[in-house]
């Protein structure tokens, strides 16, 4: 009953006209940016982040969440119409979405994607409302030792399980931790690695790191990728709604996708891409029509979209209740909250219950807005995809510059964004994932603080991390995860080498 009354209170907050407006702006801008191929939700959130500094914490979070799931949905539009995933997680939607579009059923595929996203979002919201208070209550007993272990697990999960080499993932996360130490040490007041530059005394701004690594970095990659232009797609509005059989075929996959997505979204490190891929694989196994998968099955669009959107919502569970983000986007959410003076963690549900429940309720409102906004606006998004990229990318770079410049009115921030942008591009070129760097950067100061506290309380005994039961178990899980990831990577390298030898 508590949950229902809290949710009711949250709904009143989410339905406040200004929150409704920011939710709408967030969903609209998120979809707008997400539609652009190659520009994902990370870049979208980074671009919007400076605007949220002027808002109340609840409105800021509602807007960021709107941008997040709006961008995820926008990514699906590019996947279905162009076979170019706007976001990595929507790449699974390409498998059946694009064949549907080629068969002249683009409208039905887009409608199915909108409905499935809505269904998945609602399932994710319910899971979040039920699970987050339980996890927060459990985490109230955590001391610095347990917090350190949770952060360590989150970092390893986000880096080792992510795409690409686990060694590079862990190295990048450690580099992020190091970058987080730049600035004045809050315990001793000593300056660290500022090189005498006064602008670095407060550390490197989160907006700069995010805009550089994701905004500028992704933009450089996208210029060549989009130089070919978009293929023309005509949407037949008469053939827009699924027929009765298609509605029936979608129902089960939406529920299953939502369930699977909720589970994987709440786990640090896995995120929407893994959730969509697993949900698609499960659905293909369960479906009596598995032969149609990959050839334009409506279930193949519904299931990854539902999983993707529910994972987007449940990713907020560890982020808000433990203060440990499972992905780079969630690291930005934590950063945004901290800028507003709100510390994520188990006390958030007690000290800022209005913010938490307002956000949960805004998921309902935002997903409804997404549905209402996107069904009549699909034509607009299609036309947006037709605008030559040569006009789009100079405009995007200008928006990035203004976003960074508006934070401190200081051009030093632009130079730093340039450095991070180039670093982001080189990282992609050298096969390093930039996302773990951001997670490490956000969690670095928190991790250092908890380490110092834990060592002080244990009188300098480092074995405390293993002897306290919760932290001991978490450290063991972390070690097992590391061993598993490195083992799996070694195995796949050996496989690749063997198959290369066989082909020669």
């Amino acid at each position, binding site marked *: 009953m508590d949950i229902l009354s809290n949710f009711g209170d949250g709904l009143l907050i989410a339905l406040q006209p200004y929150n409704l407006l920011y939710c709408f702006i967030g969903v609209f801008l998120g979809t707008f940016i997400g539609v652009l191929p190659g520009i994902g939700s990370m870049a979208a959130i980074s671009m919007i982040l400076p605007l949220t500094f002027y808002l109340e914490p609840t409105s800021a979070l509602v807007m960021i969440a709107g941008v997040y799931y709006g961008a995820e949905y926008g990514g699906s539009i590019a996947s279905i119409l162009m076979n170019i995933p706007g976001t990595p997680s929507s790449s699974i939607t390409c498998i059946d979405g694009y064949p549907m579009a080629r068969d002249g059923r683009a409208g039905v595929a887009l409608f199915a994607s909108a409905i499935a996203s809505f269904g998945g979002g609602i399932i994710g919201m319910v899971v979040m409302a039920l699970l987050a208070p339980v996890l927060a209550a459990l985490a109230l007993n955590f001391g610095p030792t347990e917090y350190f272990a949770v952060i360590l697990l989150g970092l390893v999960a986000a880096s080792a399980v992510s795409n690409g*080499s686990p*060694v*590079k993932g*862990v*190295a990048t996360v*450690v*580099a992020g*931790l*190091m970058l987080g*130490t730049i600035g004045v*040490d809050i*315990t*001793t007041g*000593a300056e*660290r*690695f500022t090189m005498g530059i006064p602008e670095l005394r407060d550390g490197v701004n989160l907006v700069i790191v995010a805009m550089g690594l994701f905004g*500028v970095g992704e*933009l*450089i*990659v996208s*210029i*060549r990728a989009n130089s070919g232009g978009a293929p023309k797609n005509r949407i037949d509005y008469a053939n827009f709604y699924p027929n009765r059989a298609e509605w029936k075929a979608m129902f089960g996959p939406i529920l299953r996708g939502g369930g699977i997505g909720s589970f994987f979204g709440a786990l640090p490190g896995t995120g929407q891409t893994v959730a969509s891929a697993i949900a698609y694989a499960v659905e293909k196994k369960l479906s009596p029509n598995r032969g149609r998968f990959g050839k334009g099955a409506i279930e193949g669009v519904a299931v990854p979209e539902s999983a993707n959107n529910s994972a987007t919502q449940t990713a907020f569970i560890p982020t808000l209740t433990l203060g440990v983000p499972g992905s780079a986007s969630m690291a930005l959410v934590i950063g945004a909250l901290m800028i507003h003076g709100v510390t994520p963690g188990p006390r958030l549900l007690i000290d800022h219950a209005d913010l938490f429940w307002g956000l949960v309720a805004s998921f309902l409102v935002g997903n409804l807005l997404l549905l209402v906004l996107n069904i009549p606006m699909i034509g607009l998004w299609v036309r947006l995809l037709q605008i030559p990229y*040569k*006009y789009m*990318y*100079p*405009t995007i*770079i*200008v928006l990035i*510059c*203004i976003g960074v*410049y*508006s934070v401190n*009115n200081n*051009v030093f921030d*632009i*130079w730093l*964004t*340039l450095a991070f*942008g*180039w670093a982001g*591009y*080189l*990282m*992609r*070129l*050298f*096969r*390093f994932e930039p996302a773990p760097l951001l997670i490490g950067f956000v969690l*670095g100061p928190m991790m*250092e603080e908890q*380490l*110092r506290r834990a*060592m*002080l309380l244990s*009188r*300098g*005994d*480092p074995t405390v991390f293993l002897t306290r039961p919760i932290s001991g178990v978490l450290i063991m899980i972390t070690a097992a995860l590391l061993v598993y990831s490195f083992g799996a990577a070694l195995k796949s390298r050996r496989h*690749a080498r063997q198959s290369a030898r066989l082909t020669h």
Partner: protein
Amino acid sequence: MSNLQRQSPRDLEAARAPRAWLGALGGVGLLALSLVFIWGGIGLGLGAPRRLGTGAFPVITGCALAALSVAIIVIDLRDTSAAERPDWMSFAAIGAALAAFAIVADWFGLIPAVFATTVVASLPDPTLPILGKLILGLVVSLGCWGLFIGLLDLPLQAFKGF
């Protein structure tokens, strides 16, 4: 005559996919970064286990990164698979666009900076003539003026030094 024979050595070099061992360069960069942090951290003071000093965390993370960087260098040097081809033109153009914004905004204000950034960013596109680039710069500048100064009233100076 095959296509390959007709290409000049320079074309062939350009067509050859860069090797993944280039990633080892990333490892070298990370190794250098870790050494800077270890060196700097030791200078700041490590403290004692009970009361960790200002430099303790940078040294711990620096050591971890140094070990991982060496592993990356070793792994990537043995890797010969094809990697993504760099797009140095876009890399340079976007860098120059940001630099243009930083310089022009400091001297002349936001709107001239937006114009310069748009024009510089669009330079590598051969399909857009110079007049088109200038018109695009003008349109984006006017749009930004209307949106950020007129509508959102952000505390940014539209023009400086005029």
